[in-house]
């Protein structure tokens, strides 16, 4: 059984010939790190209380911990990122946070030029990321924007290659469609 700590999981679903969904699930919230953070904040607050003998410090520490936890779960910790590709409509990216909030962006197919894997040199290593190239409305041949995908879960090259191949199959369909029309 593999360790669950360092794992991310990729799931590919095909709903129909022109519709596919890829979801990458990140590692869940670790109880260990949460408890460690809470304990350190409370220890610091208790030490301050011993110094100043002001009980407001303790209530402030509890308040800060609660607010910090809520902010972390709602705005920072991403549980799952998914990509839905529908050949005739567009590409949709969803990130769902640990608190259940979902952040969705939908890009229409007419704006999508291509889906590619880019290489980037970051400090001492080379990283790969999947991105969508958007077409410039004024100049159809040039790229106006690059939208990177799976920013928080950062899957490795093997996952990216699978997603890339599936995406390319679907994108080819729209080329054949536009050629026949």
């Amino acid at each position, binding site marked *: 059984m*593999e*360790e669950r700590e*360092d*794992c*991310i*999981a*990729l*799931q*590919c*679903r*095909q*709903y*129909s*010939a*022109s*519709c596919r*969904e890829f979801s990458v699930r990140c590692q869940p919230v670790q109880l260990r790190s949460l408890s460690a953070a809470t304990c350190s904040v409370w220890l610091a607050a208790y030490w301050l209380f011993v110094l100043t003998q002001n009980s407001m410090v303790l209530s402030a520490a509890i308040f800060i911990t609660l607010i910090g936890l809520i902010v972390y779960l709602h705005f920072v910790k991403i549980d799952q990122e998914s990509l*839905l590709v*529908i*050949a*005739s*409509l567009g590409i*949709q990216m*969803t990130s769902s946070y640990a608190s259940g909030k979902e952040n*969705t*962006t*939908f890009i*229409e197919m*007419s704006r999508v030029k291509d889906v590619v894997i880019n290489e980037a040199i970051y400090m001492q290593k080379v990283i790969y990321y999947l991105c969508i190239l958007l077409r410039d*409305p*004024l100049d159809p041949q040039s790229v*106006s*924007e690059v939208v990177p995908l799976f920013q928080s879960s950062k*899957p*490795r090259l*093997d*996952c990216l290659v*699978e997603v890339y*191949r*599936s995406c390319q*199959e679907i994108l080819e*369909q729209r080329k*054949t*469609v536009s050629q*026949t*029309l």
Partner: protein
Amino acid sequence: MQMLSLKASGGQDQTPKAQVESSSSIPMVVLKVFFPSCCSSAESGLLVGHWIPEQNSAVILAVVHFPFIPVQVKQYLSEVRQVTQVNVSVLGTWSNCKKKEESLSEFLEDLGTIFSHEPWIQLCKETDSKFWSCSIIQKHPSTPKEDEIILVYYDQRKVMLSHLHPPGNLTNSTDHKAEDASKLAILFDTVAKSKVLFMKDRYDDGPIKLTHWQSEGVEASIIVELMKQASIPVCMLLTFLLSFVSSVCKSRVLKFWPLCFIWSKLSTCEQLGHRLEHLQVISSNRKAQNQPQLMRKANIFVSLLADVALGILLMSWLYRKNRIGHLADTLIPVADHVAKELQDLLQWLMGVPAGLKMNRALDQVLGRFFLYHIHLWISYIHLMSPFIEMILWYVGLSACLGLTVALSILSDIIALLTFHIYCFYVYGARLYCLKIYGLSSLWRLFRGKKWNVLRQRVDSCSYDLDQLFIGTLLFTILLFLLPTTALYYLVFTLLRLLVVVVQGLIHLLVDLIDSLPLYSILLRLCRSYRLAAGVKFRVLEQKTGKPLRLLMQINPLSYGSVVQTYRLPTYSCYPKDSWGSLCKKLFLGELIYPWKHKGEKQD
């Protein structure tokens, strides 16, 4: 539906084997049918909507029920087409029955011959199943091809009321890119323009019985209707009052030189003028042409209401327990205290400030000059002290015009009370500026050069001996007097900057209240579907052989974009000087005016 999952571990490099099976035949054409979710439970009938050939998609707007006379249906649809400019036509049939009946399906196919439409869509739903079947009949297929059908459900009422905000780079697209224009915008447009179609529904007595979003109950609010009726006379009254007020403001009496200078310097007058403009916008009789204008009017109205409410709250707090009296009582001692602190500061400067040695004579002259000013100022304040409470009482009444007006008055009071600091700053800056220019000019003389005004550059020049002698003498005098003047300049500039910062904060708050689009924020909070950034799709349960089912929901705009798009314009510009040029002006002794208003001439 094929499912496959693979795990990738972060530690080692594994290349898991994975295969994705693709379907054997790749469909060539995809047909999209946008179906309103309110019609899912409608009885069998005809599908009425708009066919968009470029996108190969059909937008269903309503269902016409049996019995109907085809001629009347065609006539009604042509009337609707004329009014709405949307190409509404019969697109197909809809059948909702317990199980498939042969006779009904034949009847429905025959209808296809009466209302000819290419392609003819046949949607069929069985009552106890959630998977629908859809078939397309093409009379003259140009090439033999397979059709894949995607069924997209949408909430008709929400799409009709919503306003789409395309992403920033698409808003500049011009008309010739219409074919490239957002497909979603066409969909939203179609539904929004078809309001006339939604007037009649199946409970009306008429030849045509329709089902659409209003079939669940026609929505109207009595309060809204009453307010609409009442707003017309109110607007007319307001316009009359405003024209009277603006004619008074523009009268010649108030335009004489000292008065108009004072009006331009007081921020209260600016704020009142700004609010007057806002009132004029709201009370105009013309209806708003498009959505941004409507939102702007609504934002101004709600912002004014909130402002006045906060102002009245402030007023009720101020006038309770005689707080105005307390304020007036503490004002004079505070002014006295400030003057006393300034006098102490000047005494300190006249002595040995921070261990620096000053030029005794100049020090005494400048110090006595400023001390006399402070003495005059205190005398004026004491002269006014019996009237302060009454003035404050009446001025406090103007808080009912709005919190922004009250804050502007506060800023003006601060400016008036620290007027002596402003005067000192101007004197110190002018002296220092003169000194710096004198020094730079005499420094050039010292080196045998001169500023050529014609050519705007430094040229060499031969001076006479007596010119050089006097120039060098003056240069030495100015140079050794520099520390004293510089110190006075520094102290008063710092004081002035402090006052400017306080006034600036108050102006920032006033601008925030002025420009915040409260109505848009409330709309985003309560009816988030009205402001749409885009759409999102959710894939519903699938069954092989049946068309792909998607649910389209509205993706609301984020709060940051709402504030950015609907911000109300304000009248003041923030400091345009960069930090570098500000420091340069301070070093050279030029006067700084950090808060300039739009429309003022540049200094």
